[in-house]
């Protein structure tokens, strides 16, 4: 915590330098000196928008490259700030009158599930207001911070005003204002992080809501659902593939990187991760931990995350906080970028947005050993892929440039095949079992893959023992499950390893992968299942269904 002071020192040093640069006609992130930030006093601290190594734990250039979009350098030469795009913030509330948000609030589009009216302002819950500022805090208004899409419109749905929303309200939050909503930001989940458990849905209403938003939302082009991939990475046991919401093919699952562009400590890996964005992290410097969070709006006054979240040296202006971290913070960064894309090209369909984000993501942490490349079909781009980072870190300028003039892809086609040959999984054996499904190019079609789902059914005494890997005909592998412990929180709030059994089997469980994007579907798909731990815990693979979503050439 003390090192926040240190960060401020670095910030001050930077600002002095930037002021000098500005005086010499250069462009920097200074609060006083640079024209781009003259009216947003905290803009110089927003390293996720413009990283100039202004803080300890930040490296120059590790940002989302958004300034060219605002300045009209990206795309067709016009300044793009998200105008005309409505972003729904599904969260615990939204302070509609906040000084840095009020100008962007869409009239009568918000919803309060507690009082059933259009004002979801909370006097206690700050998370949604933190999220909203990252998306669309107003620019050049003389106060606070700047959102990624500083002229986008905001609607707040306070679904999480209670810890236990009803399933009909969850459905409602996915479909409300579905004609107008362009982006739905979801910095929450129904699966608890960290435990390594694949908790199933209680019902299909959430899924039904998403499908409604995709089919009929935005005049049939589909709402873009952006989802936090999960904060369970710290203990090494959780994976975004154990979360049924982030496995959903209609959802863009967003991981988080720190100020160096590396995987944030808490960010979960997964074959279903689409891309990352800055989410901040705690950084170990000079023998202590300090938080490099994302500066954003907070409940005005002494309520909210500043100072309640515990950053001793947070902003003195308590309408803002610099302590917001998590995939809750990275998802709204992507939502903001999508708002920019939809302003640049309102005709984009939901699948087109996904494809553009994948194609334009920046390969970060380049020496990470998990990076590989896809084997594309003829005419398709080659993608960098990484279980920690998906296709990389979102690049706003590249995404908006690509969006301009993009021709929407053809209708989606689905191929599905099931193999139901039950087979015992050898216990604690490094070889395991392998089964395969062959897809014939003529009989089944050879699709350009967009997404792959695998319905997996196995009974096992300890599902965490299983490593599950799907290998495409191209040789590209998707690690769908890692051998891991299932955990529980003891009465002191400390994570403990569960003995005997996990709460849930993968029986059935739908895993998903975006790692085969642009590859061909025809050929032999191999499934390897290996029980790598806990001698004495046995199981059997019963069936699996391979489902490929794509389009024809």
């Amino acid at each position: 915590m003390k090192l926040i002071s240190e960060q401020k020192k670095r910030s001050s040093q930077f600002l002095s330098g930037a002021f000098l640069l500005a005086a010499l006609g250069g462009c920097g992130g200074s609060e006083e000196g640079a024209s781009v930030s003259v009216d947003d006093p905290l803009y110089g601290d927003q390293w996720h928008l413009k990283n100039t190594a202004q803080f300890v734990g930040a490296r120059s250039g590790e940002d989302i490259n958004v300034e060219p979009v605002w300045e009209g350098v990206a795309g067709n030469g016009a300044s793009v700030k998200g105008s005309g795009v409505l972003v729904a913030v599904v969260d615990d509330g939204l302070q509609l009158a906040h000084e840095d948000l009020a100008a962007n609030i869409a009239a009568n589009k918000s919803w309060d599930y507690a009082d059933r009216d259009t004002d979801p302002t909370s006097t206690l819950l700050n998370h949604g207001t933190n999220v909203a500022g990252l998306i669309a805090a107003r620019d050049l208004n003389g106060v606070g911070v700047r959102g990624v899409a500083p002229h986008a419109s905001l609607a707040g749905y306070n679904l999480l005003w209670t810890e236990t929303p009803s399933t009909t309200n969850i459905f409602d939050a996915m479909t409300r204002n579905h004609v107008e909503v362009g982006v739905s930001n979801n910095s929450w989940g129904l699966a608890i992080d960290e435990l390594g458990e694949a908790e199933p849905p209680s019902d299909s209403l959430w899924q039904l809501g998403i499908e409604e938003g995709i089919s009929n939302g935005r005049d049939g082009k589909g709402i873009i659902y952006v989802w936090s991939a999960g904060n369970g990475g710290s203990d090494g046991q959780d994976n975004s593939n154990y979360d049924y919401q982030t496995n959903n093919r209609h959802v863009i699952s967003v991981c988080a990187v720190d100020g160096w562009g590396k995987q944030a400590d808490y960010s979960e890996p997964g074959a279903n991760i689409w891309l990352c964005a800055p989410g901040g992290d705690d950084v170990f410097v000079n023998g202590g931990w300090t938080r490099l969070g994302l500066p954003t709006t907070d409940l005005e006054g002494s309520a909210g995350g500043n100072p309640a979240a515990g950053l001793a040296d947070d902003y003195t202006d308590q309408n803002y906080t610099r302590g917001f971290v998590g995939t809750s913070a990275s998802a709204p960064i992507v939502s903001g970028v999508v708002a920019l894309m939809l302003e640049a090209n309102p005709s984009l369909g939901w699948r087109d947005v996904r494809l553009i984000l994948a194609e334009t993501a920046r390969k970060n942490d380049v020496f990470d050993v998990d990076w590989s490349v896809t084997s594309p079909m003829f005419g398709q781009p080659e993608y960098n892929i990484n279980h920690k980072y998906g296709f990389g870190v979102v690049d706003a300028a590249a995404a908006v440039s690509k969006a301009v003039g993009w021709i929407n892809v053809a209708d989606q086609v689905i191929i599905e095949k099931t193999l139901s040959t039950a087979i015992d999984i050898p216990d604690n054996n490094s070889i395991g079992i392998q089964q395969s499904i062959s897809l014939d190019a003529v009989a089944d079609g050879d699709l350009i893959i967009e997404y792959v789902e695998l319905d997996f059914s196995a009974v096992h005494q300890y599902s965490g023992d299983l490593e599950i890997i799907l290998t495409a005909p191209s040789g590209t592998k998707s690690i769908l499950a890692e051998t891991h412990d299932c955990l529980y929180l003891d009465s002191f709030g400390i994570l403990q390893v569960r003995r005997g059994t996990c709460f849930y089997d993968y029986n059935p469980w739908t895993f998903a992968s975006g790692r085969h994007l642009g590859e061909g579907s025809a050929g032999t798909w191999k499934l390897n299942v290996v029980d790598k731990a806990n001698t004495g815990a046995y199981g059997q693979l019963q069936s699996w269904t391979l489902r490929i979503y794509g389009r024809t050439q």
Partner: protein
Amino acid sequence: MILRVLNALLLGIGLSISGLSQAGVEIQTVAMTENVSQQSKRYFDGRRWRTVWINPQELAEFAVDDSDNSLMRSVSPGAKLVQQGRKFRIWEIDQATSTASAVTRSLNSADGSQFAPVFQLSASGGSRLVLSGKVIVRFKQDMQPPQLLDWAQQQGLQLMQKMSIPSTYVFYAGQGTLALEKAGQIQESGEVKFAVPEWWRQAYKR
């Protein structure tokens, strides 16, 4: 973040009980659940049948005045509050001081009972699910108001609202496990596309 930690701690209390149970510590669950039929229940989730388990150590209390613990104390004098929601709160029943008959009477009463069981999607633990008392029904074809009201009356349900997808309505069934049972009966009748109990389900900010 603070709320998240609080959530985790509250959940931890529930999970740790399961952990104790697994480790072989004796918890008297059988008597507590008599007449709440079985520990597990089957229901249709809109696409497939699922099983939920009643958590025998916990009880949800509805429409409560935060400062008034008297009703819960009458059922289980030593009960501990483990989750404070806005529409309900969840208590860990004190095994030593509760009487099985008081708990089951509370769960099964049809007089606007203020209690409901707490469910989970695994026999050994997991996130809490509480029935709201409502059932969501999607009909095979659109229904007009007179038909709908007749149908609801026949089923012993009360029409609450229309959902924004075609032919789908929310009905009130009643507290306890009534919504679960009613949804299952309607689903099994084959008259509808689906009949799903409405749950309050734990959600987590990230």
